[in-house]
C-alpha cells in the first residue's frame, strides 16, 4: 500500500476534525451549513480513498451516495430554508465560543482515549486515529445540540453525529453491508425533511426558530 494514501487519509481525517471545530467556533448559521457540506465532502473523499485502497465496489457506491445526499441535498435544503426565512445568527449560546472550543478539545481527547482502549488490540494506527476522530465527531455533535438554541443547529448537530457514525463505520468496518448504509442515508434524508417541516410548523406558530421557547412542558 503506498504511503501517500496513509498521508492523505491522515490529512482528511484531520480536516474533518477541523471542520467540526469550525462549526463549534461560529455563530453564523449559513457558515455551519457550509462547514457541514465541506465535512461531508471530506468524508466522501475519504470513503472514495478507502474504496480505492480496498478495491471495494460497495464503498464507491456509498461514497457517491454520500456525496449526493450529505454534500448536496441536505445542505441545499437547509440553505434554502434559511434563505426563505432569513435566519442569520445563532440567537443565544449556552457556552461562549472560546469555552466551547476548549470543551470540544477535551471531548476529542476523551474520544482518543476511548478509541485507543476500544480497538487498539487489533487495528492499525491509522484506523485508531480515524475512528477516534469519528468518535469525537459524535461527541461534538452532541455538544452542539446541548449548547445551541435553534432548530437548524439541532438538526446540524444530529447530522454531525450521523457523519461521525458513518465515518466510524467506513473506517473500522468497511465490509458493512451496503444495504445498511443505504437505509441510513435514506433515514437521514427523511429525518431532516421531517425536522424541517416541524421547524416550519414551529416558525408558523411561534414566529421563531429558536428553541428557547420550548419550555412549556415541564413536570
Amino acid at each position, binding site marked *: 500500500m503506498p504511503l501517500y494514501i496513509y498521508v492523505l487519509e491522515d490529512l482528511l481525517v484531520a480536516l474533518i476534525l477541523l471542520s467540526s471545530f469550525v462549526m463549534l467556533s461560529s455563530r453564523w448559521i449559513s457558515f455551519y451549513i457550509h462547514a457541514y457540506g465541506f465535512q461531508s465532502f471530506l468524508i466522501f473523499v475519504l470513503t472514495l480513498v478507502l474504496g480505492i485502497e480496498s478495491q471495494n465496489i460497495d464503498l464507491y457506491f456509498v461514497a457517491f451516495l454520500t456525496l449526493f445526499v450529505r454534500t448536496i441535498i441536505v445542505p441545499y435544503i437547509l440553505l434554502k430554508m434559511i434563505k426563505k426565512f432569513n435566519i442569520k445568527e445563532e440567537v443565544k449560546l449556552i457556552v461562549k465560543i472560546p469555552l466551547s472550543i476548549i470543551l470540544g478539545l477535551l471531548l476529542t481527547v*476523551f474520544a482518543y482515549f476511548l478509541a485507543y*482502549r476500544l480497538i487498539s488490540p487489533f487495528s492499525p494506527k491509522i484506523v485508531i486515529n480515524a475512528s477516534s476522530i469519528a468518535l469525537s465527531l459524535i461527541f461534538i455533535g*452532541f455538544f452542539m445540540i*446541548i*449548547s445551541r438554541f435553534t432548530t437548524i443547529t439541532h438538526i446540524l448537530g444530529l447530522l454531525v453525529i450521523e457523519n461521525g457514525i458513518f465515518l466510524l463505520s467506513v473506517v473500522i468496518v468497511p465490509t458493512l453491508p451496503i444495504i445498511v448504509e443505504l437505509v441510513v442515508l435514506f433515514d437521514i434524508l427523511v429525518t431532516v425533511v421531517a425536522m424541517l417541516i416541524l421547524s416550519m410548523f414551529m416558525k408558523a406558530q411561534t414566529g421563531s426558530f429558536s428553541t428557547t421557547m420550548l*419550555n412549556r412542558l*415541564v413536570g
Partner: protein
Amino acid sequence: MNLSLLNPLNYYYLFLIFSAAGILVSFLGLILKKLKNNFVFSNILYMAASLTAVSFSVIAFFKGGNLLSRVLYLGSFFPAGGVVLKFDALSNFFILFIFAIFFYISLYQIRYVKKLGSGINAALFAFLYGVMLVSVYFVIIAFNGFVFMIFWEIMAISSFFLVMTKHYIKGTKKAAFLMAVITEIGAMLIIFGLMVLYLYSNNFNLYALKDAVIPGYIKEIVFTLFLFGFGAKMGIVPLHIWLPEAHPASPSGVSGVLSGVLTSCGVYGIMRFGLYVLHPAGSALLIGTIILIVAAFTMFFGVLYMSQTHDIKVLLSYSTVDNMGLILTGLGASLYYKYYGLYGLSALALVASLYALINHAFFKSLLFMGAGNIEHETGSHNMDDFGGILKRMPVTGALIFIGVLAAAGIPPLNGFVSEWLNLEVVFLGFHISGVLPRILLFGVGSILALSSAVAISSYVKLYGLTFLGLPRSEEAKRAKEVPSSMNIALIIPALLSISLAGFMFLYTPVFSKAAELIYHINIGKNILHNYIFIPYYSSFSASSPVYLFFVSILLLSALYILYKVIIKPKKRFVDYAWTGGKNIINPHAQVSTLGFSNALRVMFNLVYKKGSRAEVQNKTSQHPYELKNPFPYSSYYHNSSGYGSYIFPLIEYYLYLPLIRFFEKISSVTTEVMQNGSLNLYIFYIFFVFAASFFIIVLIPV
C-alpha cells in the same frame, strides 16, 4: 353426586350458585336501567348464599370426621401451582361466623341503602358487595398462597370501593384512599412473606409451605411480615389510622362488614399463615414477644383515642383497634406457651383469642348497624347532637344496649367472657419459666385491664349521651323507629351475643376444634365440665359464665318479684327529684362528649398532644398535607365555642406526616430536575449517560 341435604359439598355449590346469581342480578341492574328492585333481589340472594355457607360449616362440625376436612382440587394455575381449596376446622369456623354476619348485614342494608338516595348507585353497591362476599369466602378456603393473595386483593379492592360509596361527601375519598394505602402496604408485606417462604418450598401450596424446612430467623422475619401485613387489615398500631377514617365515611352496613368481617379475615390470615403454616417452635418466643408488644400498643392507643372522640363510628372503630389488641394478646400468649412446651395452655390461649374474635365480630357489627339506625334517622353520627334517642327508638336502643354491654365487657354477657378468658390466659403466665416473658405477659395484662376500664367509660359515654338524657338537636327530636327489617337484622347478632355467653358450651367444642388444627391437641374435653369452664388446670380456676348468666337473671327476677311483693312501693311520676320536682333542666347543660372525657385528656396529655384553640391556627398552617384529624377542636360545653381543646394523634403526627412530606419533597425535587423543559438538558442526559458509562466500562476491565 350425593344430593342429600347433609352433604356439605352441595352447600358449597349452592353458595356459588346463589352468590353468582346475586352478582349477576346486580350487574344486570347496573347495565339495564329498567331492572327495578335489583338491589333487593341481589341482597336476598346474598342472604341465601350466606345461609348456605353457614349451613356447610354447621353440618361439617356436627358430622365431624372426614367431612370436617374437604379438599377440592381445581387444576393448576400459573404461577400458583395446584389450586387447592380446603375446608378444615379453621376455615369452617371462620365461615361460620363471618357468613352469619354477611347474612344479617345483607338483610340490614336492603332498607338502609334506600335512604341514601340517588347519590349512590345501588346496583353498583350490590355488585361490589357480592364480589366482596365471594372473595371473602375464597380467602378463607383458599389453600394456596397465591390464590389466597388474589382473593385477598379482590376483597381489599371491593371494600375500597364500598367505602367510597358515599363519595359525594367531603372526606370520603380521603378515607377510602387512606384505607387502600394501608391495606396495600399490608398486602405487599404479605406477598413478600409468601415469597420468602416460596424460596424454601418452591410451591405456593399450603401443604408445601407448611412442610418446608425453614430456618428460625427466616420464620421470625416472615412472621413479622405477616403480622404487619394482616395487621394492616385488622388495624394494629401503627397501621390503624385508616379505621377511624374509613368507618365513619362508609355506609353502616359496610362499616359492619369492615369491622366484623375484614378484621376477622386479618386474624384468619395470621392464624392460617402465621400459626398454621409457619408453626413456629423455636422462634415462638421472639414472635410471641413481638405480638405481645404490638398488642399492648394496639390496646393502649386504640382505647385511649377511643375515649376522646365525639363521633359514634370513630369511637367504634377505635374500639375495634382495642379489640384487635385483645385478640393478639391471646395469640402472643399461645406462642409463649408453645415455646415453653405447655401445649394445652397454648391451645387454651388460642381458644381465648378466637372467642374474643367471634364476640367482637358480632357485637361490633351490631353496634355499627345500630349507629347506622341512628344515622338513618338523624343523618349524623356526632354524639353531641343526640340525646334521648331511646325514647324515640326504643327497639334500637334496647338492642344497642345489649351490644354496649357486650362490648364493654360487662358480665354476664359475652364480652365479659372473652375478656375474662384472656385475662386468665395472661394470669396463667406464671407457668412460664422465663422471667422476662412472664413480666411482659403480666404487663400486657395490666394494659388489658386499663383498656377494659377505658372501654367501659367510653361505652357509658356512647350510650348515655346518645340514647339517654334529653335531645340536643332538632334531628334527634324528630327521630323515630327505623323499618323493622333493619331491626330484625340487629336482633340476630344480639341473640348471638347472648348465646355466646349463656350457651357457651355450644361454642367451646368449635373453638377447640379450630385450635386443635393448629396445636394438634384437643382441649375440648379438658376445659368444660358440667357447664363449668376450667382454664386447663382445675386448681387454677374454674368459672362458669353459663351459670353466672342464668343465676344472675334468676336472682334479678327474684329480687324484682320480692321488691314488688314486699315493698309494694308507691310510685309518683314527677319531674326531677334533685330540682325539687320542677322541670328546669336545660338540655344543653348536659355533659358534652369532651366534658365527659376531658379529665382523661388532661391526665394523659403526653399521649394526646392536646392543644387549645389558639394553637389550631398555627398547627394547620404548619401542615399543608394534614391528614384529617379525627379529633378536631371541640368545646367542653354544648353551644359554646369558648372553652375547648383538640388533640392530634401521636402516631399520625410523628410517623405519617414526616413520611408524607419526605416523599413529596423527593418527588418534587426529582421531577423538577429531570423534567425542566429544556431540550438541551435532555440531550445532555443522554450524552452524559453515554460518556459516563463508557468511562466506567473503560475504567473497570473485564
